[in-house]
Structure formats: structure tokens, C-alpha cells
């Protein structure tokens, strides 16, 4: 197997005394999609923000210990937690990009979408505005935005949620990052758009070869797009492995409970009205 692109080792993040992440370790391989799964508050988003070194922004959070090792193009590894803020700025957007949960609020309302993507490109690449605009247009086409030249001149409020999320993805991928972190990218979208976005991310991944770290609580999404998965609960690592293995033979009781929370096709056959799910027995997990 390849060397991992990103290795998280024993990551611990504290909010005061409370441990939001407690000794988390996992590996992410180039070109693969890793799903980080868990219920709300299990530490998934904090994990993503810690990798980006954004977790300490405006909160009391502190990365207490651990390593986040990123493999560079030349094969050497750097610990993101030890980089200066200046070095991190050149890594963010360039090596690692992030797409957020709320496409409605993650674009700046006062600039056109095109301007925002162009500015992003120009922050990392020394190019003229004209070349950056050309590149932005390419990216808009790549994320299958219809009439990209028109949409580039639109302000975010003129676009639908799905379109805005496409713009976000175009922006995130505009500097060819090797890792894309997607923090519940489909949660705020309706189901038909969700399917489109997942398909889009999957085909973009094949085109660009970027690794994707997908944060989600939706088992359907995991089964659809992920290669490997990490299960988290209450700030702690539960288990990890390939999606195929875990769906087949979940090792931990909690993973079984998570999987059981998704209705199975046909389980409601013959019933005339909806029923409650069986409550999962959490004792002993």
C-alpha cells in the first residue's frame, strides 16, 4: 500500500478541561475517500478544524498533544501542528482545502462568486487577473455549473444552495489541493441535490486525484462515496477500516448501533403507516 498522505497520531484537543478529541489516530491515503462518522458532538468537525489549524480560532480550544503529519510532494513529512501561522496560510487552500456545511453562509455576500474564486487563486499562484479568471472559469465548468460565465458575475444570494456549494467546491479545488476536507457538505442541501453533489465530488476526485476527508453522520453517504471510514463517539476513536469491511462486520457495538439506525430497504414492507425505530440498547457499549 502507498504511504499515507495524512497521518493523525494521538490527536487530543481540549476545550478547557473537556477533551473534545481524545487520542485520535487515523491514516488517509492519496486518492482515497475517508469518511469520519459519528453522531453530533462526537468531535468530527473539531478533527477537521484541528487539521486545518483553525480550531483555536475564536474559541477556547487548544490542541493538547498529538501529531498531524502531511506528506509533501517530495516525500518528506511535516507536522502541521508545529508549523508557523505563515506556513499554514500557504498550506491552507494550496495543499489542504475545506468545504463547509452551510453553503448559504460560506460565501462572502459582497463579492461576486467569480471574484471570490479569482482572489483565492491569486492568493496562492502568482498569476495575472486574466489568467486567474480563465482558471476560475475552468473550475466553474469542472463543477458542472451551467452558464459558468454568467454565474461568475452573480452574487451568492442570487444562487441556489446547490449552486453555492458548487462554487465552494470550485474555490476549494482551484489550487489543486491534495486533500479536500468536506465538513458535512451535503447536510444543508435537499436529497436530490445531495446525490448530485456526492456524484460530483466523486468524479472530481477521479479527475484530480485528490484525497477526500468526508465528515458526515449519514451512513448512506458513507456507503455511496467512501473507501475507508473512521467511527468516532464521545470524542473517542471507536474503530476504523474499509467501508466494505465495517458495513459487513462492524467490530464495535456502537458501529452496529449506528448502522442499525438506518432503515433497511424492505423493512417496512406490509406496514400501512410509519413506525418508530427500535431504540438501540446503549448499555454495555
Amino acid at each position, binding site marked *: 500500500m502507498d504511504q499515507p498522505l495524512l497521518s493523525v497520531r494521538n490527536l487530543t484537543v481540549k476545550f478547557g478541561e473537556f477533551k473534545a478529541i481524545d487520542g485520535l489516530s487515523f491514516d488517509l491515503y492519496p486518492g482515497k475517500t475517508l469518511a469520519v462518522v459519528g453522531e453530533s458532538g462526537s468531535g468530527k468537525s473539531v478533527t477537521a478544524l484541528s487539521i486545518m489549524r483553525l480550531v483555536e*480560532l475564536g474559541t477556547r480550544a487548544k490542541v493538547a498533544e498529538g501529531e498531524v503529519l502531511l506528506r509533501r510532494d517530495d516525500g518528506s513529512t511535516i507536522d502541521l501542528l508545529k508549523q508557523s501561522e505563515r506556513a499554514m496560510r500557504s498550506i491552507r487552500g494550496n495543499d489542504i482545502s*475545506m468545504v*463547509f456545511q452551510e453553503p448559504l453562509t460560506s*460565501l*462572502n455576500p*459582497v463579492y461576486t462568486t467569480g471574484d471570490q474564486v479569482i482572489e*483565492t487563486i491569486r492568493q496562492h499562484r502568482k498569476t495575472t487577473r486574466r489568467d486567474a479568471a480563465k482558471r476560475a472559469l475552468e473550475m466553474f465548468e469542472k463543477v458542472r455549473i451551467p452558464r459558468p460565465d454568467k454565474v461568475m458575475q452573480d452574487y451568492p444570494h442570487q444562487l441556489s444552495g446547490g449552486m453555492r456549494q458548487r462554487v465552494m467546491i470550485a474555490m476549494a479545488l482551484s489550487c489543486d489541493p491534495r486533500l479536500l476536507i468536506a465538513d458535512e457538505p451535503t447536510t444543508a442541501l435537499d436529497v436530490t441535490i445531495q446525490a*448530485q453533489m456526492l456524484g*460530483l465530488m466523486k468524479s472530481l476526485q477521479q479527475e484530480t486525484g485528490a484525497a477526500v476527508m468526508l465528515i458526515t453522520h449519514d451512513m448512506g453517504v458513507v456507503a455511496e462515496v467512501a473507501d475507508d471510514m473512521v467511527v468516532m463517539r464521545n470524542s473517542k476513536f471507536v474503530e476504523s477500516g474499509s467501508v466494505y469491511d465495517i458495513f459487513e462486520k462492524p467490530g464495535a457495538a456502537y458501529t452496529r448501533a449506528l448502522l442499525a439506525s438506518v432503515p433497511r430497504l424492505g423493512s417496512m414492507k406490509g406496514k400501512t403507516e410509519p413506525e418508530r425505530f427500535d431504540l438501540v440498547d446503549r448499555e454495555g457499549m
Partner: protein
Amino acid sequence: MTTLRDTTTLADTRERPPIERYQGLRMFMANKAAVLGAILLGVILIISYILPLFITTDKLAYVASRHTPPLTEGGPILGTDYLGRDVALIVMHGGSTTLEVAGFAALLIIFVGATIGAFAGYYGGMVDRVLMKVTEFFQVLPGLLFALVVVALFGASTATIVIAIGIVSWPPIARQTRSEFMKQKGLEYVKAAKAIGASNARIILRTILPNTFPILIVQSTLTMGAAILFEAGLAFLGLGDPNNLSWGYYVGLNRQYFLTNWWAVSIPGFMVFLTVLSLSLIGDGLQDAINPKLRGR
């Protein structure tokens, strides 16, 4: 996922209705009071800046006997003051002084207030605490008194008056900018800008600041009105630039003759009133145009 391209292009091929480019202007025009304010300010600007270009006579020359009332046969239209000077001419020339002092003061107030507010709001923590203590210090100073001291110490030139007004008036702007920055910095688009590798300076100047413009623009019209009143107050107390008679200064000069010569006091005073009124009407209109939530109140 082979049909991906088809489904995605289907979703958005319908033409959207054309967007309203001039919606803001329309909202402003819908506010009759604001339009009145804009017209009023336009007239005041013409009187202060265009008309003087066509009048070559010395504004300080003796034109008719002292205390000639307005509309007297053979006298100037708005009468004369206690030295027999033409009130209309002096008031006309005084407008530019008043407007310039107030305009520069408002610029200074917005610049200082927005800068300090932006730093305090964005960085928070220790930076915020120190800057807010400084702001509070300036806020509890008795404004007019402090400005009087500054002008008395450094001489009554246009520059010192502008600085004096600026020093005592920036705290409210700083607080407003700070609260706006605190609100905006928690929003997802700021986090997204950060995640894309933007520096702090870039986020302050290019990401958040343009989002505070709606508030700053409205505030700047109101600040300008306040600065005009402030300048008039200082000048009335004799701390204006004696080489450039502003409206307030002229009111002050004539105040001891008020019982016999009401017009030389009232006319420049009325001009101050009209200017401040027009600015605050415009401010209201801008608020309507910029902040949709307040519309139709």
C-alpha cells in the same frame, strides 16, 4: 453517475428573472423625506461652492448702513450685520468652511473609529480589552470641553479644529464597528476565507470590512451632521478659524446684537439647521436603501 451532467444542467437552465441593479436607488427614492434631504443638500452645496464663483465683490466690504434689515429698499437682500457687511455674502462664503471642517472631521472620525473598532472586534481578547479601555477613556471625556482645550492649546486653525472634533467623536463609531466585526468574524464565510489561506490583514480589509460598509455609510452621514453641530458650537464660542468665517463663528460674532439684529444670527443658524437636517434625512434614506429589514417600518 453517468447521468450526472444531464441532471445538473437540467436544474438550472431556466432563465432567472433579471436582477434589480438599481434596487437600492429605488428604495432611496421611495423615501420622500430622503429625496427632500438630498435636494436640500444639493442646494446648500450650490450656494456654498458654485454661487461664490460668480460673485467677485469682497464679502467683507461695507455695503449699507449697519443693522439694515432684510428686504430693505436699496439694501442687500438679507440685510447687513453690525459692521454694515452683506449677511447673504458672508453666509454664502461661510458654507464651504463649515462643510469642509465637518467633512474632514467626519472622515477622520470614521477612519479612526473603524480602524480601532476593527482591530478590537477581530482580534478580541487582550487587544480588545486594551482598545476598549482607550475608547471608554475618550468616551467619558466631556467632548466640547476637551475640544476647547485642544483648540485653545494649539491655535484655532482648520486642522486643529478638525482634529479636536475627531478626537472626541470617534468612540461611538469604534464601538459600532467592533460589534459588527465580532458578529461577522463568527460567520462561516470568514472561516472559509481563513481555510483558503487568507491572512488576518486580508480578512479584516477585504473580507469583513466591505460587509460593515452599510453601517459605516449610514453612520458617516449622521457623523457628518454631528460634526457640523460640533464645529458650529466651537466656532460660536470663538474657537473657529478667524480667517474663514464659518456659520457658527458668524452666529457668535453677531450674538450680542441679537435684540436689534436678529437676522444676522438667525440666517446662518438656520443654514446649520438645514444642513444637519438634510444629512440626517439622507442617512435615514440610506438606511432604508441598505438595510432591507427596516424597510416598510
